[in-house]
């Protein structure tokens, strides 16, 4: 099982400058754990030390925010596109 993860500019230096990395896993939690194991520079950035999603990070599976799905237990399937994005203000 392989999914692609798109990283924001601020995290790319930790993965050798890549914008997209391919990672295996059956849930968002597994995918992120694998990602951080392969790129230790990301440690503490996406998942905080208590094992929760960093509050300033949003993670999307095919454009849906996992916080409103099953959080880290959200299942992923082959070919899913995952995006990690900093939380930003919108609002005109």
């Amino acid at each position: 099982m392989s999914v692609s993860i798109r990283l924001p500019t601020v995290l790319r230096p930790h993965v050798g400058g890549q914008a997209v990395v391919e990672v295996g896993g059956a849930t968002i939690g597994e995918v992120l754990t694998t990602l951080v194991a392969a790129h230790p520079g990301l440690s503490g950035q996406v998942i905080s030390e208590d094992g929760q999603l960093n509050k300033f990070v949003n993670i999307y599976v095919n454009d849906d925010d996992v916080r409103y799905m099953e959080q880290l237990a959200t299942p992923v399937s082959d070919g899913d596109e995952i995006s990690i994005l900093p939380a930003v203000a919108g609002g005109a």
Partner: protein
Amino acid sequence: MTRFGSVLDLIGNTPMVDASALSPNPSVSIWVKLEGRNPAGSVKDRVALSLVQAAEEEGRLVPGAPDQVLIEPSSGNTGIALAMVCRMRGYHLKVVLPTNVSIERRQLLEVFGAEIIESPGSEGSNGAVRLARELAEQHPEWIFLYQYANPANPAAHYRTTGPEIWADCPEVTHFVAGLGTSGTLLGVGRFLKEQNPDIKVWAIEPPTGEMVDGLRNLDDGYIPPIFAELGGAEILDRKTVVRPRESIEWTRRMTELGLFVGISSGAIMAGAIKCAKQIPEGESATIVTIACDDGWKYLSTGAWTDDIDEVVERATKVIYF
């Protein structure tokens, strides 16, 4: 009633139009509430009036008193609405505006006499918020209404937008709106859920992409304080991103119904379509969605008439939410 004592009396009580002809699911109807009918042209008129009235009630602002200066970060609509109210009340407004907004948004701020302070476009709305906070700190004599942290923002929607939707469309099953300051979603979402806890609330976000390239680290990320303080996570049932191409496509499709609305309204309609698609066929549902403003302020972007690939490319660099 057709005679009014003040333009401010025209804020709210906006009409809702049936857009079910665009629904991909025959058992799902879609209604659009046209906030462009507000006098300064957007849903933010409700918020601006509520913010100013709350500050006046607290005595932070005194109508007619000299040298009262307000500062506010805005990518456009809140600034324009506040500028109108401030002009009428005699307050001086400084708007911190990212450089990458449509020219018409700047022009409208100037029409109502607001002073524009530019923030870097590459930092998006976050950059405008950051700069406004810094300036407010350096100038404690300025009044910082701070729509992202001011409960008078969602309160405007709890008090007006929510009850209007409930009165006009009590069969509503889903409410779909844009996530910016989170004021609309929090205020309307809470009100509707109090009336019927089964109503689902969907938040639509624009993709941030290149607009947040200026962020230096993840801690530059920003969650509106009102979202955390007022239990935003409990009110939302779903949060989804809509791409610039879908936003433009649906902004164009809406003209089939005579709806000439802004690009964020197209994005929200795209979200409503996504919502309609995931409702099982045969299960009847009624989606209520918001058109935040009309299309006038975006004519210069060529959104309706230029080659769609070019418009999409431009839209990735412009703040339209």
